[in-house]
């Protein structure tokens, strides 16, 4: 021994290589396919809006930590991920000079990072998903700008893309018949929904790309099936039972509901946020079912065409309660009670 110091600490003396920042960056990476498809369909605007969110999230985190004299943790990737998720949840049309709305993503990022996350105590202590609060805040403050949906063009230079309603918007206002009409036929409707050739939030449209990312996360065990499966399953069942015309039960189209809106993005990437979902598996299933039920309640009965993000946020409120009531099963506990 050259030097005379050894480290003395409590066991265990070895640890896995996994780190928080590695998790954050990997989840960010898993959203890359969806991001690429978004830029393909919505052009540079999608890129600009997302980049703006990411940059302002990171800067918000930096300055608020500096102001609160905390350790600067922007390299852990969590601010990046929050910015990315917020960006993917916004309409690409925000990047336009007429009307002037590019301050909107910046304010959303500020709300997400500063108010939702840091003022609650920072990473790990926030109750609500920061990106979703950011988006809901923007919806409430700029309802018009937040619901101007560009048509997917796949033309990189088209800065004045036409606007149109989202499939769920059409479904809500004009019914399934009109929706099929817009897309030609049913098969084409599903195909376009799958690849993401439709209007909507930047990152929510390309189901295929999102599923690739989700499969990667599942394979890497960064997320487990519990929340997505119970969330999607509940949506499918409720859509089938109640989603039909008028009062006819069991005539709904579950597939249409699964493929549209922000469901896939929400179920795999937002509801599974570690900090704001229950941490015991049984609790997660309950959480997923709650998200699914609330989503369908809003979609079918509420004032908005889409309910995924409200559903997740509402269930975030229940997370502490779920965590307190649904505990893990302690080894050997049952026998003790009967004693």
């Amino acid at each position, binding site marked *: 021994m050259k030097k005379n110091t*050894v480290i003395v600490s409590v066991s*265990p003396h070895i640890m896995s290589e996994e780190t928080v920042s590695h998790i954050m960056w990997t989840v960010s990476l898993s959203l890359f396919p969806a991001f690429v498809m978004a830029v393909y369909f919505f052009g540079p605007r999608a890129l600009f809006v997302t980049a703006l969110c990411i940059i302002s999230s990171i800067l918000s985190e930096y300055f608020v930590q500096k102001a609160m004299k905390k350790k600067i943790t922007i390299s852990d990737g969590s601010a990046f991920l929050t910015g990315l998720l917020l960006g993917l949840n916004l309409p690409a049309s925000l990047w336009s000079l007429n009307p002037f709305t590019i301050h909107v993503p910046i304010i959303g990022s500020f709300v997400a990072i500063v108010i939702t996350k840091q003022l609650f105590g920072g990473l790990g202590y926030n109750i609500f998903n920061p990106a979703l609060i950011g988006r809901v805040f923007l919806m409430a403050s700029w309802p018009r700008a937040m619901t101007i949906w560009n048509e997917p063009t796949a033309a990189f230079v088209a800065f004045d893309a036409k606007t149109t309603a989202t499939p769920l918007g059409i479904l809500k206002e004009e019914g399934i018949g009109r929706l099929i009409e817009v897309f030609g036929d049913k098969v084409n409707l599903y195909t376009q929904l799958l690849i993401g050739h439709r209007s909507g939030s930047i990152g929510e449209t390309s189901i295929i790309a999102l599923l690739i990312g989700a499969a990667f996360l599942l394979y890497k065990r960064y997320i487990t099936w519990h929340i997505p499966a119970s969330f999607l399953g509940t949506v499918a069942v409720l859509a089938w039972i109640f989603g039909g015309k008028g009062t006819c039960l069991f005539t709904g189209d579950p597939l249409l509901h699964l493929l549209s809106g922000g469901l896939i993005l929400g179920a795999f990437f937002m509801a599974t946020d570690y900090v704001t979902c229950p*941490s015991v598996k049984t609790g997660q299933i309950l959480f997923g079912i709650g998200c699914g039920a609330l989503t369908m309640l809003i979609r079918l009965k509420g004032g908005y065409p889409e309910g995924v993000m409200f559903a997740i946020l509402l269930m975030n409120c229940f997370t502490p309660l779920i965590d307190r009531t649904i505990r*893990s099963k302690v*080894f*050997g506990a049952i*026998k003790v009670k009967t004693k």
Partner: protein
Amino acid sequence: MGLLTFKGGIHPPDRKELTKDKPIAEARPPRTVAIPLSQHIGAPCKPVVTIGQDVKKGEMIGEPGGFVSAAVHSSVSGKVIATGEFPNVMGRMVPSIVIENDGKEEWTILKDNPDYANLSSDELKEKIKAAGIVGLGGAAFPTIVKLSPPKEKPIDTVIINGAECEPYLTVDYRLMLEKPHEIIEGLKVLMKVFGINKGFVGIENNKPEAIKAMGKATRERQDVEIVIHALEVKYPQGAEKMLIKAITGREVPARGLPMDVGVVVQNVSTTFAIYEAVRYGKPLIDRVITVTGEGVRESKNLLIKIGTLISQLIEECGGLQDSTGKIIAGGPMMGFALSSLDMPVTKGTSGILVLPEDKVIHTEEFGPCIRCGRCIDVCPMGLMPSMLSIYSEKGFYEGSKEYNLWDCFECGSCAYICPSKRPIVQFIRLAKSLTKP
């Protein structure tokens, strides 16, 4: 057929390749030994020798201080040169006896029992007790206590623990390869003690040679039924409760003992010591340990005399590398980090592990809990280590009892897996030290 196992657990790299092919070698005789009078859980021994007295190898130097206690014997022949308080590997000061080795290796009179198979249960227990045997897996619980359950808890199953799930250690593995018959005989002694005729051996599936050797030794003994079970490779497979669950499907009640479900578990080294005690009347004065880790020049499996200083063993293994960061008594998951090498190896020390600096994790840089749930998934006791660590961190020690603080046996799986590198076991120990069960 799937391998037997339990729910939860982790897969740390096992690093057993450093020593698994190194036959057990006898360590060089120490010049002096420092033998603590408290090497076990329970009452310390009362010294029965004084300074200046000559002792023989195997002579009792400390008599049991109560029912839960174990006699201590001299591991060398020579002269008692000091008595007093010396630090043990857990960092506590314990009364010890220092003996200078005269190098003559003169044994005290031992009672050989070639026909030990005909001894009664009580006679066998008497011999095990006289030999001062304790659990050699690390906990060092007096074996005689385990073998004397109250009447209302009949034992119907004996399991030999060959899991050796701690990374790096290869003590039990080498013993199973080199002494399979003796271990099987030891198991038979245990079965005789309880008057049962079915025994089990559980071995992790990453030790196929051990499974083979033990299987072969078993087949050569047709008189009793012994089943060798291959277990899934997963830490902490060798924890008693997990092993019992894997092999018998029985779940030891929370805060209960294996005897509550009619099971007694002994690890391989202990079983071997039991055999030697019963067959040759040999007290527990030596044991096999693994001296290993990337920080020591030559890793070895050594048969050492209890009381040998760790510094001497390190020297025998070529000394430390320049980059030494941490020295651990025991395995990397549950062992104790040492502050000095001038401490004796005791009955419960199964290994000396030297980790180089770049393998040492600086846990003072831990982050907040991101509630990822990984610790909950891996906790073999089904606890919520995240909550335990948060409660303790915030000072709500009593509150952590709500989350079954005292069911934690500090296996370290939670802290191993935590991406935030939270020192969960440290938080748990802190809460335990400030509350009562």
